[in-house]
């Protein structure tokens, strides 16, 4: 970095800016394997003014800004490069207001998702999105990635729970969109544009989340099957019976063993697949649904169906499922977790395809996923230091994504495109989709400063900019914070 730029950043932000090698190493990566990059510097913003100032400076001086929550993302969305400043939003972690009458809450982006759960549940309310990393990840990251979770089947994903945002646009302007009105169709859906934009269109500084009443009770069941195929049949049977469980998760044998190794729940290691089903709602309905699910699971050929004895046991089971990805890391140094997603009905076909592809490339690929959503997490266990294994894994995933698309699915259900799935995006959304995506990015971020290189590559902007001082005042970015 040019010393002059560093001096200017220091002058603007003082001790809030860190340039030490150690801090930069600390923020060089997120939860995605095989990606990393040392940033220029790291900023802990004190307020919206800092974010605005950083983005203006980025436009003037031509560096990138990479917003970061807890860095648990799985598509390298928070991985910086040597021309970017990492913007740490994790310190903004206050819950500003819980509006019980309007069933919503204003929160800062650094609030940890599980902390929001606790805060609203103590008031009989419920914030459903629950990504696997919910004890670590932040609401800001969830909004950026449109995160899903185990409860997606019944309750949907983050997009369904964001009523409004305050954000700083790449040019340094403030965007306020949405609000507490449940119905609001004034203008384009700008909130919808921000949700899932992977930090490339806006830095979210406040989020208005929608809450729902907390379900009265729930019941959790486990069903064991000799094969993934049999488990998939049970999934179809449950959904065809018009039951919508909160959670309908499956784990294959490989994953099951690793989870058992970590969590020691006493799961049978010889089962070919496991289904984890949770139903919630009012007590009589839950009791009835649980019984029907139990019968349907057994009828589909389960070797055993057990019900969690109490809430604590149900929690242990779900916690273990959340740790599935990291548990698989016990098998090998590098664990690549993907999230190819297909229409529910195509799930058995997809699972079989993943197994075939894994065998063809001589790889261990564990299958775990949100069966009810068709959201599969094929997880490949390799040693990232072995170039041959890495190459084989890349080839295997390429085939997996193509298969998912052929089956009418998509390349990512909830992790986002980031860096790791950029090269498959055109196949998923088509040339038209790419053209509009590019146009939106260009319109909002003309100098490509915000999380550059994520989601899509832009041809370099033909900067023919005069030095900032010579720009006439009327041409500069609007002054002052709205």
């Amino acid at each position, binding site marked *: 970095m040019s010393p002059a730029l560093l001096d200017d950043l220091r002058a603007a932000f003082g001790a809030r800016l860190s340039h*030490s*090698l*150690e*801090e*930069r*190493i*600390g*923020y*060089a*990566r*997120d*939860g995605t*394997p*095989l*990606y*990393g*990059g*040392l940033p220029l510097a790291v900023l802990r913003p004190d307020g919206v003014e800092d974010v605005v100032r950083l983005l203006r400076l980025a436009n003037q001086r*031509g560096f*990138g800004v990479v917003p970061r929550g*807890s*860095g*648990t993302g799985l598509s*390298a969305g928070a*991985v910086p*490069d*040597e*021309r970017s400043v990492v913007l740490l939003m*994790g*310190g903004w972690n206050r819950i500003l207001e819980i509006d019980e009458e309007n069933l919503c809450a204003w929160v800062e982006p650094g609030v*940890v998702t*599980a902390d929001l759960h606790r805060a609203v549940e103590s008031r009989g309310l419920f914030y459903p999105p629950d990504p696997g*990393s919910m*004890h*670590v*990840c932040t609401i800001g990251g969830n909004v950026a990635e449109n995160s899903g979770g185990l409860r997606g089947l019944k309750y949907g994903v983050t997009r369904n729970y964001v009523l409004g945002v305050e954000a700083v646009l790449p040019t340094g302007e403030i965007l306020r969109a949405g609000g507490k009105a449940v119905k609001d169709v004034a203008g384009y859906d700008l909130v919808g544009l921000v949700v899932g934009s992977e930090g490339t269109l806006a830095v979210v500084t406040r989020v208005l989340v929608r809450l729902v009443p907390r379900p009265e009770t729930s019941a959790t069941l486990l069903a064991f099957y000799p094969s993934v195929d049999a488990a998939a049949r049970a999934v179809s049977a449950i959904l065809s019976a018009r039951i919508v469980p909160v959670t309908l998760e499956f784990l294959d044998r490989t994953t099951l063993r690793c989870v058992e*190794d*970590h*969590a020691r729940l006493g799961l049978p290691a010889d089962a070919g697949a496991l289904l984890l089903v949770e139903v919630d709602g009012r007590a009589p309905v839950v009791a009835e649904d649980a019984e029907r699910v139990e019968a349907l699971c057994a009828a589909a050929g389960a070797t055993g169906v057990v019900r969690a004895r109490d809430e604590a046991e149900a929690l242990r089971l779900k916690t273990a499922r959340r*740790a*599935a*990805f*990291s*548990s698989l*890391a*016990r098998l090998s*140094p*590098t*664990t690549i977790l993907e999230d190819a997603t297909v229409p529910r009905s195509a799930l058995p076909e997809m699972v079989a395809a993943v197994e075939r592809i894994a065998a063809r490339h001589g790889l261990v690929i564990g299958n775990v996923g949100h069966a009810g959503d068709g959201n599969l997490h094929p997880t490949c266990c390799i*040693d*990232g*230091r072995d170039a041959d294994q*890495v190459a084989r894994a890349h080839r295997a995933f390429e085939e997996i994504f193509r298969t998912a698309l052929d089956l009418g699915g998509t390349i990512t259900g909830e992790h986002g495109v980031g*860096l790791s799935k950029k090269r498959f995006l055109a196949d998923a959304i088509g040339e038209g989709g790419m053209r509009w995506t590019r146009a939106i990015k260009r319109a909002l971020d003309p100098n*490509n400063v915000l999380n*550059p*290189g994520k989601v899509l*590559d832009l041809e*370099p902007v033909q900067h023919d900019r005069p030095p900032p001082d010579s720009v006439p005042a009327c041409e500069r970015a609007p002054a002052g914070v709205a």
Partner: protein
Amino acid sequence: MTTARVATNAPSASGLPPGGARGSGRWQPGTDVARHLPPDLLAACIRCGFCLPTCPTYALTGREISSPRGRIALMSAVAAGELGLSDTFRYEMHFCLDCRACETACPAGVRYGTLVEGARALIEERMPSRRTRLLLDVALRSQRRLDLIAAALRPWSRSRLRGPVRRALARLSPGLAWREALLPELERPRPVSVTSRESGGAAGFPAARRHVSGRARPAPPPRMRAVVALLEGCVQRHTNAGVSGDTAFVLGTNAVDVRVPEGQGCCGSLHAHAGVTAGARELVRRNLDAFEPLEELDAILVNAAGCGSFLRHADRAFEAADPDRARAALLASKVRDATEWLAGEGWEPPAGAVDAVATVHDACHLVHGQGVFDAPRRLLASIPGLRLVPLPESTWCCGSAGTWNLTHPASSRALLARKLDHLEATGATLLVTANPGCHVQLAAGLRARGSAVRLVHPMTLLAEAYAASSATIR
């Protein structure tokens, strides 16, 4: 401007651009670095971040490099030659509490404790710290010297002048006043009475116990069911002198033949935590001599969690080629925490009541270091009249962490305050913990708050319940 660098998450290519180490000087890690920071252990971290919410120092600073994931990133950079043993690196490696909460949380099974102690050993090897050595070697290498130091400090530790002096000191240096306040009221070490095959019962328990008389002895059980040796804990002898006697009494009551080998001393855990591996090794050797013949022992019981956690892996202090490594491994395989062993073997529920509300603070090196959580609770639940209430964040470090409370006064106080706030919210009158480090720290905190809560080791509480029952049965 956006080609992201692709690299593996292995230390040999940690994804940092080649010029990345400028500023702190590239260094040649050398072959010994892999010995201290084994590449496979570093590569086991997949950076999922599940450790972050369990890390007390990350909670204090909010900085990635104060978290296990961030520290492993720093270690990987050091191992790859991209970062030298910089001030910040050394600080972060020692700012870590080594509490291992991250190991409990880690689904990938990363051996973080081994890594951080490896990093400290690397630092100690390249840039030895005289202060660390002085503290460890003068105080702990010889039990006699430690006894003499404790004896010299004992009058002051019980002096009424401490309060006023500390208040004056606080004006000069709050850190110094805090360290003074940590000094517990030192006790005279008490010889541990042990049972033997011949006597067939608890041969005695500390006569000084308030409500325990020498006559109140449980009936001799029919036969000894196991032979165990007890490690007393070199510091615990002075800071909580009754614990080992109480442990022996509880074990004897349960028909266990307890031996307290002569010549035992400091286990070496503090040396190992500080990265002074050679010192740790020497102390393990001394205890090996004291505890031989190991084959005669069914178990080596420890009532100080920090010592137990280290001794369970005592062989890791030895090089693979070291002839003593096999003996150390045998010793390690027999080490159990006294509560875990007794709960596992089965025990006679005491008949005597302890009417109180108790809560358990889990010593890091018991719950995270040894995976023992249920055992003390199960033992305590068998005491009639005792009501156990949960302590929020019971598995969080209290800020003691070996000598960490001496080296990081402000952070240590913050963690202690967090712990005591939770304690006060429970309404418990007994705080039960099984580690001398926690004991010293919590005692200082309770004293400073003028709290009436009694701090007690689970074995002591159990001993009192047995003694009360035999007194009534008599």
